[in-house]
């Protein structure tokens, strides 16, 4: 069993509780300019009355505090992390080295372009590579995350229709879609039109035809392979039907790790693709970000891409092009999460076309290997080969009073990060497993073995699952209480009467 209770004897107080008046870590240069009276610099009325109550710590105490917190955390570096649809593959350390080169990390966005040619070249090159991988024409690197890419793509769909004097409102979304899809649709000013999945897990073509017949179609968003981990065999027909209805097709690239160099969204008929560099291209997830969500579009849609677009001039110089009158505008400040993009560039450069293909082949083999090994252990509702992930169901365990959540919590005790639970919504007690290509056969065997042992425990002694986790720094946490009485910041003793939240 894993033992993950942090450092022995660790001080679990917050950094504010550890603060000790008068201690300091910082050092700053001495004032070397004339000491003008403060009132002449900034009038008292604009100055702060009470200082922010930041912690007062020595430097070693700061380092120990955060080192301690890191021991309470779990990353890909710690062990298997088969979190479905998140592609928790190994994050190569070379990426960190290159992103931290001062020639990239020290660049200011408004320094003259002539002094940033290497960075703009890197961005241009990455854009070209992503276009090739997507099978489409032009890339913007601006979106900061997948959901942000979705919004950018949907705004481009909107601009495309407006340019033709239309303002259709409905965007079709399968019931297997990520929650960001409908949320992005609304933020772009559209209405989601849900479409059902068929018995094989793909889009139900009959229902799709019905939805299309309702008219007012702006487009369709699809993940392929979808969140069930199955490739929609009818994709060419789906694309034809949506295009015929005047809609555009948006590819949610969250699951691109299955198809690199094997099938390209552009060839499937999609018009817009986003990639999650933090999934497919190995940039670290960082505990929830930063990621990057570049999008690639067809030649017809390139005019609408946000400014600036990275271009190469005829003389070989690279530049940021703002002169694009049909552009939707700007999706973010500056040009993109460049530090993240350097990592993605590094990864693709090292792997090359053969390496990328091997990524997807192995990711798919690994997922099928785990799925086959778990047949008879957990329920696998879709009886077909999976792609890079599959969805199992803990429904058979319900008779023992055990649910997917309990399986997940017990996995923690065995040192395996749980799969995504309760998603996709169309599978009861879903456990969505994505091993990724960087897990070895032994890692996968161990994962399978842990699942077996937990299912056995569910039969023999379900209380073990209901009590789990027992080896973590905390036992199961009361999430309902957190929502009922939100405590979203440190309370200081002097605040208690004021009732700050």
């Amino acid at each position: 069993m894993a033992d993950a209770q942090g450092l022995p004897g660790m001080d679990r107080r917050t950094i504010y509780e550890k603060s000790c008046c008068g201690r300091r870590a910082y050092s700053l240069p001495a004032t070397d300019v004339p000491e003008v009276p403060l009132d002449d610099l900034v009038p008292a009325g604009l100055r702060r009355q009470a200082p922010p109550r930041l912690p007062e710590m020595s430097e070693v105490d700061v380092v120990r505090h955060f080192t301690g917190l890191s021991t309470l955390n779990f990353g890909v570096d710690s062990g298997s992390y088969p979190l479905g649809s998140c592609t928790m593959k190994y994050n190569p350390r070379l990426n960190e080295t290159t992103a931290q080169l001062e020639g990239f990390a020290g660049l200011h966005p408004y320094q003259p372009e002539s002094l940033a040619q290497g960075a703009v070249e890197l961005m241009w090159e990455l854009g070209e590579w992503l276009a090739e991988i997507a099978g489409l024409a032009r890339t913007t690197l601006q979106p900061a995350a997948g959901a942000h890419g979705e919004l950018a793509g949907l705004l481009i769909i909107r601009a495309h229709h407006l340019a033709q004097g239309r303002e259709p409102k409905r965007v079709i979304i399968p019931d297997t879609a990520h929650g960001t899809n409908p949320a992005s649709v609304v933020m772009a000013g559209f209405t989601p039109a849900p479409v059902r999945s068929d018995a094989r897990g793909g889009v139900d073509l009959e229902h799709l035809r019905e939805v299309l017949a309702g008219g007012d179609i702006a487009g369709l968003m699809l993940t392929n392979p979808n969140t069930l981990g199955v490739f929609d065999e009818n994709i060419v027909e789906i694309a034809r039907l949506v295009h015929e209805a005047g809609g555009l097709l948006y590819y949610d690239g969250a699951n691109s790790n299955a198809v690199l160099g094997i099938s390209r969204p552009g060839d499937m008929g999609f018009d817009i693709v986003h990639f999650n560099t933090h999934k497919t291209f190995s940039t670290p997830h960082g505990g929830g970000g930063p990621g990057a969500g570049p999008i690639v579009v067809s030649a017809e849609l390139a005019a609408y891409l946000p400014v600036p677009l990275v271009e190469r001039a005829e003389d070989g110089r690279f530049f940021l092009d703002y002169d694009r009158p049909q552009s939707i505008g700007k999706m973010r400040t500056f040009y993109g999460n460049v530090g993240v993009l350097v990592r993605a560039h590094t990864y693709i450069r090292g792997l090359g076309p053969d390496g990328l293909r091997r990524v997807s082949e192995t990711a798919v083999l690994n997922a099928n290997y785990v799925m086959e090994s778990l047949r008879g252990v957990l329920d696998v509702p879709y009886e077909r080969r999976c792609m890079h992930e599959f969805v199992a169901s803990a429904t058979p365990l319900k008779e023992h009073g055990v649910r997917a959540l309990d399986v997940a919590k017990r996995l923690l005790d065995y040192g395996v990060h749980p799969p995504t639970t309760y998603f996709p919504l169309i599978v009861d007690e879903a456990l969505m497993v994505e091993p990724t290509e960087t897990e070895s056969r032994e890692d996968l065997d161990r994962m399978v073995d842990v699942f077996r042992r937990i299912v056995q425990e569910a039969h023999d002694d379900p209380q073990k699952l209901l009590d789990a986790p027992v080896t973590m720094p905390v036992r199961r946490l009361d999430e309902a209480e957190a929502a009922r009485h939100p405590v979203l910041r440190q309370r200081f003793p002097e605040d208690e009467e004021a009732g700050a939240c």
Partner: protein
Amino acid sequence: MPQAATDYVPHSDADMRTMLAVVKATSVEELFADIPEDVRRREPLALPPGLSELEVLDELRRLAAANTPASALVSFLGAGIYDHYVPAIVDTIVGRGEFLTAYTPYQPERSQGVLQSIFEFQTAICELTGMDVSNASMYDGGTALAEASVLAGSHTRRGKVVLSAGVHPEYRQVLVTETAGYGPRPQVVDLQAGAATDLAALARVVGDDTAAVVVQQPNFFGALEDVAAAAQIAHAAGALLVVVADPVSLGLLEAPGRLGADVVIGEAQSLGNAMSFGGPGLGFMAVAKPLMRRIPGRLVGQTVDLEGKRGFVLTLQTREQHIRREKATSNICSNHALNALAALVHLSWLGREGLAELGLLCTRRAAYLRARLLELPGVTAYTEGPVFREFAVRLPLPAAQLVEALVPQGFLAGVPAGRFAGQFAGPAAAGLDDVLLIAVTEKRSRAQLDAFVAAVAAEVDHG
């Protein structure tokens, strides 16, 4: 098998054979049988062939060396991204694999490290801004502004947001772009001479259709705004006040929450994060308690485990897309957790005195440089009144020309305001090509400031 390229796949050929047997396939190819032949790609992707780690590093070093980073020059560039010193411990902490390679803390019992750090970050942002509730961070300042506008629209059910032209022009562009199909319509109020917001003009356009008034403190040109007056104008019309704040200034300047702000957003790259050509940044958002259930993005809350021990969880998730789907407050699904951690480490290193001292040092040096520059013939104030770390001057020559002329001497003189000319109107928009925006961080010593003044003086004389 010898590898010419980088490869992170662990399997040997024997592993592959064993695994294929388990899945009852004779080749990997068979696993892709569901993909119709007409969308299968048979030829390799047209990408450069893979390289060994050493070769990749050489190639990336070549690209990096083709840049002259601002950090290696005597730089006065700011306008939203600042070259502050990042203490050595920041990289040590954020480079730890347990933080770097984790995902969003969906399993709180195994993610107490990142959850507690976000709780501590939220606390720091609340303390800096004087607000009640901070989220776990946003992408950047521009997207945070767009989200604040949507929040104000849904809270007030009104259709217009009034923005000071002193709000960063790129933030305003992001707002216009991202809310094109949704959310209140923006209206911009010009700056007056001296670069502060024309509050009389603001009062004229704010009415019962206004969801929010947005001002930036210090504003884009470094002018200090009368935030309390803007709050009065907003609140008299039943609108929210959104303040775009610079977190480094908040050790010295009054917290917007104490001046009437309902929402405070901004960019916190300058705390602990590299400039990195403008991204990843660190957007933040903090709100007054009545807006708690409308705030977008992740929130971490304190709770107890079944033994009564304190722990931290993601909370109030019924606002979010994975629960509410199309009814969510936003589509945002991640945050910039690692950047937030870097900011928290930097703030912990500075402490309550260090942040104030840092702000004061920047302010003193900026004031000194401004005074020296204004002694030069033909150089006049564009930003008037007190400033924090940044100010604009009007030059007797085009600002872009001065910047270019000083690069060979190792100076990046500032950001030419003409770059944003299309984003300004009214009295402050005249002759922007001659206006230079100059930022002074603690990295700039007096010797560098004096050398810079001499270099500018020489160019002004030539002019």
